[in-house]
């Protein structure tokens, strides 16, 4: 009597959302078919595919950062802060720590993951030792992190030659090598992380313990799993991935830390939605992240080509989640 497989309900939710979105477009005087066609072309046409992938890389990173703790029943809402800290550290290491090129790049990535990981672990530690709910503290800790980054890039470490709050450019030999016109080696880093997360989830002792905690934390504790230590370690991994994601953007695409540039695309919240959609299951999370990346990239194309604003894709994203939640809610009520 296992639950029916997940895929059909996801497909159904997407279907409902597409129909509801079409009604919305039609009601506002647009052509739904044209809008959807532009989304599809904008996302998947051979010329546009690299753009979609480039958008998918950080989105997947942030989705995994949420999915890991979610697998254990914990929620990390502090992705923005961890992403920004990672980006900031990744920009500062090559600028202020004189190391030879490639070494500097690796040092920057490692330091970014470490700092962001420790910052996320702080939220877990606060819950374990002082009972501050992590749901709240992880979110609140984001603001001082973003504030600090904003101050540093706006005042003491600002590039004087630029009118924007941003650091100077990092030296070319510390940057992530490009892959084609749009992508960079950071995509490989996220791919490796994604594979590692899936393997750990399915095969490792650590993954088993985290999954069982997610299914019943009291059982996990009774079985001898030290929940406190597990929470801190899990959040460290989660924050580390968020930090690494920030580092790949800074070292691979922007080449400097610019205040707000990491947060504006909303990778964190799209990633959160992708992880929620899959209930923290890694393969599903990655799939959802790719889907959302395609939807959002397609949204830009649609906005360019038709009169329909890009916000439609965000509406679609939200509708998918809502329909899915409603379906699961209904099923729960119908059960004996």
């Amino acid at each position, binding site marked *: 009597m296992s639950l029916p497989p997940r895929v059909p309900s996801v497909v159904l939710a997407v279907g409902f959302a597409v129909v509801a979105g079409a009604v919305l477009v039609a009601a506002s005087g647009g052509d739904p078919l044209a809008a959807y066609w532009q989304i599809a072309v904008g996302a998947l046409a051979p010329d546009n595919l690299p753009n979609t992938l480039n958008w998918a890389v950080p989105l997947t990173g942030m989705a995994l950062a949420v999915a890991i703790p979610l697998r254990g029943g914990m929620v990390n809402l502090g992705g923005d802060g961890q992403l920004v800290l990672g980006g900031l550290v990744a920009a500062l290491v090559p600028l202020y720590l004189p190391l030879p090129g490639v070494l500097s790049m690796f040092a920057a990535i490692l330091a970014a993951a470490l700092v962001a990981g420790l910052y996320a672990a702080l939220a877990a530690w606060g819950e374990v030792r002082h009972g501050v709910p992590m749901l709240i503290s992880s979110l609140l800790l984001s603001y001082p992190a973003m504030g600090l980054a904003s101050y540093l890039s706006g005042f003491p470490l600002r590039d004087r030659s630029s009118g924007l709050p941003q650091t100077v450019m990092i030296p070319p030999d510390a940057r992530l090598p490009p892959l084609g016109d749009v992508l960079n080696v950071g995509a490989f880093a996220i791919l490796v992380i994604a594979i590692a997360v899936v393997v750990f989830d399915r095969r490792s002792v650590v993954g088993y313990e985290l999954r069982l905690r997610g299914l*019943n934390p009291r059982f996990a504790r009774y079985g001898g799993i030290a929940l406190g230590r597990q929470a801190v370690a899990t959040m460290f991994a989660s924050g580390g991935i968020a930090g690494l994601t920030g580092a790949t953007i800074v070292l691979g695409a922007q080449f400097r830390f610019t205040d707000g540039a990491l947060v504006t695309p909303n990778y964190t919240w799209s990633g959160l939605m992708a992880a929620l959609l899959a209930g923290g299951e890694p393969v599903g999370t990655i799939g959802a992240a790719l889907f959302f990346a395609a939807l959002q990239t397609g949204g830009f194309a649609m906005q360019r080509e038709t009169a329909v604003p890009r916000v439609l894709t965000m509406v679609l994203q939200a509708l998918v989640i809502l329909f899915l939640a409603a379906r699961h809610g209904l099923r729960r009520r119908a059960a004996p």
Partner: protein
Amino acid sequence: MAPALQASGIVKRYGPLLANDGIDLDVARGEVHAVMGENGAGKSTLMSILYGMQAPDGGTIRLDGVAVRFRSPAEAIAHGLGMVHQAFKLFSSLTVWENIVYGREPRRGPFIDGAAARRAAVALAERYGLAVDPGALVARLSVGVRQRVEILKALYREARVLILDEPTAVLTPPERDVLFAVLRRLVVDGRSVIFVTHKLDEVLAISDRVTVLRAGRVAARMTTRETSAREIVRAMTGRVVADRPDRVSMPQGAALLHAEAITVRGDGRVLVADANLSVNGGEVVGIAGVAGNGQTELVEALVGLRAVASGRVQVNGRDVTQSDVAARREAGLAYIPEDRAAVGTAPTASAADNLAMGFHRRPPLRRGWKLDGTAVRDWARRLIARFDIRIGSERTPVATLSGGNMQKVVLARELSHAAPVLIAEQPTRGLDVGAAEFVHGELLAERARGRAVLLVSAELSEVMALSDRVLVMFGGRIIADLPAAQADEERLGLLMAGRPGVAA
């Protein structure tokens, strides 16, 4: 005269499972009618249908000869049904009278008429001998008194047929006697009581007639005066069950579990006060007591799930006072927790995942950083076969299992540790006669292997049947330590009610 309640041909299906397969039940006016049956026999389903919580797939219900069809408990209540659930449904931050009148408050204009409500509560309580203080806060009341509030709530809604689901599970023997006295007054008054229970002696003591269910059908209908415990058990299980497990005398070994001066605090109260206990190899020590007198907290302190304010715990000669759960298990402790669905298993996880817990950090299940999937499945299959767990496959979630089979999952895993010390907390709660017998056999087998068994149970019969020594807990203290020969029901009953002076 038509029966007060008559259900005929009730059918309820859950997928392929036929939970109720044409059940007939007649309850006369002015009788206590016991409904018995093993777990999964269909008692709960039948009660939830009678009370309007579920719609039957077939069959009819008549009240006083009139066919009714309830779409909700509210409709059932309006027709004169009342139900006291096992888990009480009271607002603990409100007073007794507020709980009693909730949903049907006497009004004066837009306001609740508190004085009238109190008067109504007091009048009802006096009429049926249900001693409660109407102004008391429910949170402060003992479980037995809360149950009286539940009954008053149903009576206030003019229940003519009252369903009690396992009402004595939480009561001391004296509280049980009070409840029975109340039930007798209710039936004299022309009301009817449906009494759902597992306990034979209670059925014999209080009921007028018995309907026994087995596998969704009525296995027997009996008049209590004309039947016997043995006949009822045979109807429930379809076979003859031994009254008491055989217990051979055992030479006792060293103290394998030893606790000194354990004190546990929580919520600003002392939950366990200065408890000392010692369990030797080859010995079963039972802890008797009404639920909520510190047994759970004491056990949690022993296994490392709860911090002690002071005291020392030794397992197998090692001081584990400062150790976490994993280290205590390593030292030689296995634990069957009170609540198998909330603590003892992850119900939505597969049997393989549930059976691996605690074995997953060492070979053969662990290989380096990896958990060997094949080894996990083989391990699960072996335990499923050895303990005869009735389950589709090791991939099936344990939530789908009956109580007895779920308990076998817990038992299989914990006994496989072959730990010197086994703590078993309410190991047969909610299990049917056959499954309970199996658990008792396993506990005694542990004793025969020279292990130390600490048994915590609210069932006096269980404690008396299995234990070499009996401790009684009351108000967080261990107030008695008796050899089995001196632990009879009357004495334990008085001790459980906190009256050692009378018991001595």
